[in-house]
């Protein structure tokens, strides 16, 4: 025994998806932000927007490149480690994944090059249009991936024949019950994540004084966006929670570490859930609040884990804590936005060193919240891959041994621990460079003067030696 291919395969998938999701979490938001900046530049003609947009486009290019190489890994995981899952679900989910790669491909092939290198080579409306289409492309990608993921959480529109899923109604498959909520909550989460990165970098630029004007413009703009987005995100999270209560009550009970179904349920602020003894230790709770938050009424019944067979319960402690980390970080974000407004109304937002440092310190906060939220929803889906229908234990590739998966897991760990720090460092160098030197349309990552090659036989051709 010893090494369990199931546990190791789960760890491996978790490892490669967690690192991968950091990039979409950033690039989805950044693509929309760049499109917004390009829109400002297009309509107002103020060069500051051009500078800010070019600055972020340079960073976007690095993040997007890393997103592509870490994304290539993902579809192969379904085949190598989850072949029984893939066999059972292929008829339903494979076209959604294929549409994602077709969309991503069209986007990458079509418009990214123009956005990155085409500023002086195509008419201005075309460049703005490219920025919009890249942003739209990242949203389409999110659409298909989250449709797939949501279908695994709340499967719909299928029939089962000999243990395999067959599509009955594509609209029901794609727009399955949790999809609209998950899509909204995830995309807004990505936007907020990017927003805090932009604010952190803006604060840095203001403190360095070298590019303070750009920094101030970024900070003002992003603060405005986050003032809407952070409360919206909390509202969407609440709706998503209600949806989970309706369609995945066992998951919700695990998130709340709630063992007995009851009305007037308290809300556990802290607990050490004990899965075996079906109870919580070191409990700190607020009476009535659980029912109030989850059902919007103190009379509402909150499901309890004991309603569900032990074999159908998610690991309670993991989701209990990851959910609280996510919510806690959300409240910290809300506090930061409120504090920023307070300083702004006093007129000291750009001069308060302490707060600017805090903003820079808080720049990765969205990533932490995204990972915590992702762990909540994915671990909360356990022990199922297709919720309530297909067990994770029956999804893994039967021919794999624990040792084999251990080797591949170590391989992915080693490689990701090399490339992510290097990639992060590249982006940091781009931040250090600042938005000042941006005149040439070069963003990095690709050729400087690509779209118009020298005419054949032109005099400036020289031997390649």
């Amino acid at each position, binding site marked *: 025994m010893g090494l369990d291919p199931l546990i190791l395969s789960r760890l491996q998938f978790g490892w490669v998806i967690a690192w991968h999701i950091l990039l979409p979490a950033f690039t989805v938001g950044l693509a929309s932000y760049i499109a917004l900046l390009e829109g400002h530049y297009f309509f107002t003609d103020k060069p500051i927007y051009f500078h800010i947009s070019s600055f972020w486009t340079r960073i976007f290019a*690095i993040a997007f*490149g*890393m997103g*592509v*190489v870490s*994304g*290539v*890994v993902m579809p192969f995981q*379904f*085949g*190598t480690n989850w*072949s*029984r899952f*893939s*066999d059972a679900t*292929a*008829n339903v989910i*494979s*076209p959604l*994944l*294929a*549409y*994602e*790669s*077709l969309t*991503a*491909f*069209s986007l*990458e*092939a*079509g418009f990214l*090059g123009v956005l990155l290198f085409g500023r002086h080579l195509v008419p201005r409306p075309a460049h703005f249009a490219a920025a919009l289409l890249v942003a739209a492309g990242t949203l389409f990608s999110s659409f298909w991936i989250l449709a797939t993921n949501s279908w695994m959480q709340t499967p719909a529109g299928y029939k089962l024949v000999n243990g395999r899923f*067959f*599509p009955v109604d*594509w609209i029901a498959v794609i727009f399955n019950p949790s999809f609209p909520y998950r899509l909204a909550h995830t995309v807004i989460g990505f936007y907020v994540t990017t927003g805090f990165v932009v604010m952190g970098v803006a604060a840095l630029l203001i403190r360095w004084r070298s590019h303070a004007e750009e920094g101030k413009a970024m900070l003002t703009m992003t603060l405005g966006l986050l003032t809407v987005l952070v409360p919206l995100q909390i509202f969407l999270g609440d709706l998503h929670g209600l949806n989970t209560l309706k369609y995945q009550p066992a998951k919700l009970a695990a998130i709340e570490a709630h063992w007995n179904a009851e009305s007037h349920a308290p809300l556990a602020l802290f607990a050490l859930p004990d899965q075996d003894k079906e109870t919580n230790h070191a409990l700190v709770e607020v009476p009535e609040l659980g029912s109030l938050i989850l059902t919007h009424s103190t009379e509402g019944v909150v499901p309890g884990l004991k309603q569900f067979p032990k074999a159908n319960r998610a690991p309670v402690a993991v989701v209990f804590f990851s959910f609280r980390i996510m919510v806690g970080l959300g409240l910290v974000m809300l506090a930061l936005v409120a504090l920023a407004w307070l300083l702004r109304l006093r007129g000291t937002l750009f001069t308060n060193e302490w707060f600017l440092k805090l903003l820079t310190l808080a720049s990765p906060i969205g990533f932490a919240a995204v990972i915590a939220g992702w762990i909540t929803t994915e671990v909360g889906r356990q022990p199922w891959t297709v919720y309530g229908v297909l067990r994770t234990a029956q999804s893994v*590739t*039967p*021919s*794999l041994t624990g040792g*084999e998966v251990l*080797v591949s897991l170590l*391989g*992915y760990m080693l*490689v990701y621990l090399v*490339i992510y720090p290097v*990639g992060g460092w*590249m982006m940091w160098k781009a931040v250090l460079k600042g938005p000042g030197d941006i005149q040439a349309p*070069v963003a*990095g*990552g690709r*050729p*400087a*003067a*690509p*779209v118009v*090659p020298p005419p*054949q036989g032109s005099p400036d*051709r020289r031997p*390649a*030696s």
Partner: protein
Amino acid sequence: MNIVPLWTLILALGVFLYVVLDGFDLGIGMLYGFARSRDERGLMMNSIAPIWDGNETWLVLGGTGLFAAFPLAFVIILPAVYFPILVMLLALIFRGLAFEFRFRDQEHRGFWDHAFAYGSGFATFAQGLVLGAFIQGFPVQGRQFVGDAFDCITPFSVFTGLALMCGYCLLGACWLILKAEGALQVRARHQARIALAATAAAVAIVSLWTPFIDADIARRWFSWPNIAFLWPVPLATLAVTALLWRATAKNTVRPFFYAVALFSLSYLGIAISLFPMIVPHHFSLYDAASSPQTQIFLALGTLFLLPIIIVYTGWSYWVFRGKVRADTGYH
């Protein structure tokens, strides 16, 4: 309605485009290890810099396309080639990032140079291993692979791995003849000949080896009346090899297209050997196909998007036509 033939064509086209397109840039990656100076390495990398990531995206399309159109093949083949796939993915990560990082990370330029050359070599070898293992077939029970993860490593698959390295080097060298000038081009001509000799020998050996290990393939090629229709395939291969050998001496554009023709014929040869099986000895294309609703649902969008992708790909090659120059690369 049954559209298995349509998906067979789409997937065959996708895999072929991947092999040729990423083939030549992986070949450049391997030849990169033999370059003599930093300038040469820069030129070689620049000759593929604008297009490599588009080339690689065909791999993702191929993977998700196989999953969507012939999922049974996907779920049997991938576990069977678990380690070659792992090596390929990790190698491709390093190789892909080398494009970005070689120019940004001057202090570790040597590391990224090695990552590029070895990444390309390992990725190619792993793909060749997958090809060899695929031709040999896998032990299957029900709908699952039941062998061992190391079953795929056999003398035959190691040989096809090495053969594909020769083949991709050939494509890469011919691409370099097209894109380079001066001393780099001269050496590319030389490298193309070495790679061609090795590739031609490998193709010949594989052609004789496969009917030897697989009675079905022997029957396919040598039984009457098949042999009457099929004899032009080896003959054409021989003719293209001869033309390519001559073209490497003096032509600029032709070698690359002859090399692509050589790959087409080898591809055709494999298709003739295995058709209509997509999991050799076990499942045909029809057995492995996803449900008709699935295939139709995906075909609707694919038939719309794929032509756009192909046209754009062609356009980007057109844009970057002409000789590669030192200053048109990464900065």
